[in-house]
């Protein structure tokens, strides 16, 4: 139940994130208060500051919630169903909405340990960026 990963092409704003993924690193952001934030964050809610810096995190986390998706939400994901989408809490605090590689979704439980893994998007003929996904430890 691990699906396929539609082709992703990086662009200027996403270059640092995908370059880190290619090195096997998960890149987040950190605000002046020290709070670690997901890549899409634009403001550090603890300080109100928009001054965020990149930070590499451990890639370790716990499972907050998950869903076994049977009906593809987009045509691009038609070949991927069924697959597992999850909310993961990184050890550093931020929550990420991610794909979870799970051979036995029935065995998943909230609080379970998970870690990042990097998988290629696209196909062998047409490879795209490496993507951070998660799997149970």
């Amino acid at each position, binding site marked *: 139940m691990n699906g396929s990963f539609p082709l992703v092409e990086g662009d200027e704003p996403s270059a640092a994130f995908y370059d880190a993924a290619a090195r096997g690193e998960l890149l987040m952001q950190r605000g002046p208060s020290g709070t670690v934030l997901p890549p899409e964050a634009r403001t550090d809610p603890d300080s109100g500051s928009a001054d965020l810096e990149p930070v590499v995190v451990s890639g370790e986390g716990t499972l907050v919630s998950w869903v076994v998706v049977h009906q593809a939400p987009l045509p691009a994901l038609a070949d991927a169903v069924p697959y597992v989408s999850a909310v993961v809490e990184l050890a550093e605090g931020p929550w990420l909405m991610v794909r979870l590689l799970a051979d036995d979704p029935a065995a998943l439980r*909230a609080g379970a340990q998970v870690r990042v893994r990097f998988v290629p998007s696209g196909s062998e003929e047409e490879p795209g960026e490496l993507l951070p996904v998660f799997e149970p430890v």
Partner: protein
Amino acid sequence: MTGAAIAGLGLTEMGKVYGRSSTSLAAEAVRLAVADAGLGLSDLDGLLVSAGVKQDVNVNLAAVLGLHDLVVLNQVNAYGATAGVMVAQAAQAIAAGAATTVACVFADTPLKPKQSAGAAWGSGAKRPGAAKGLRGMAGWSVNSGATNPNILYALCARRHMERYGTTSAQLAEIAVAQRAWAVHNPLAQMREPLTVADHQASRWIADPLHLLDCCLVSNGAVAVVVTAADRAASLAKPPVHVWGYGQAHAPRRMHAGSDWGLVTPAGRSGPAAMRMAGIGVDDVDVAELYDCYTYTVLVTLEDYGFCAKGEGGAFVSDGRLAPGGKLACNTGGGQLSSYYMWGFTPLSEAVIQARGDGGARQAPRNDVVLVSGNGGILEHHSTLVLSPHERKAS
């Protein structure tokens, strides 16, 4: 302060209504609501417009309706919370003397012929000529697979199940109870009785949500006319008094300690509206709760204080919300079984119930009718407290 009342209600055809624009349906709904109140279009001095999924109706509706002399005109959007927000804005404008008669209208036409309901929510990704790959950070987001409300609400329901032991069979109780009400609603799209077994056998959309946990998709429009309570009393229909309103907004925080999915802004909006109305949950005779998914009803009941946090599953069991149950809830069948008009689904049924016009589905008591609106992914909330009676001075 001048109290406000809903004096008119207009509903167009609902469901698979094809060949008409949202604007055309919106205009019809306003005309129907004005006529229902015994008024003419020229009596309106305010118009609030809400567009749904298609976002293709706006303030130009005033020109379409020939309304050339308004003092209030705006497009309002708090997603599924919009209906309650609009009625509150209309009531405030009337209380302040800024307007006398305000129409609030919602219209949407997401459905097309020969298209599944699911496809109505698709994105531009299927357009011919779309980029071959997904670009930038959006590519990672799309690959998470959590890209539509079905999946995001399922994440919320799963959290509740893991934390409190809530089950899919308990969610089924909500769908079954609402269908039992819809059987008696001539306006409802789905009127065949339903069992818990039917719900459990319906296909998975996003496990833990089955097909029968999810709302319908409908084309159509609904409008209400809000005016001063004393004026409403002399109009064509019995007034539905606005006793209280509230709203609260909590865009989800994606961080450790977040209670997203387990606790919603209903927990602030509901008590605020009930405080303003001078009532408590025990006074509620009819609850018309926004039900984009069965789980939305369950978590709203908890956040409003009908039961303790975590006890929603037990609370909705044994037919409590069904006809003859202890709490008349979503008496028209709700968005799950009647029609999906964002917050105008619960609002329209609330007006029908408060007037005593529910026919075979009329609730046994209707002195206090509670209406909820919910938008985003349990992130935006509005509440109305309505009554056929003028509110006693406190």
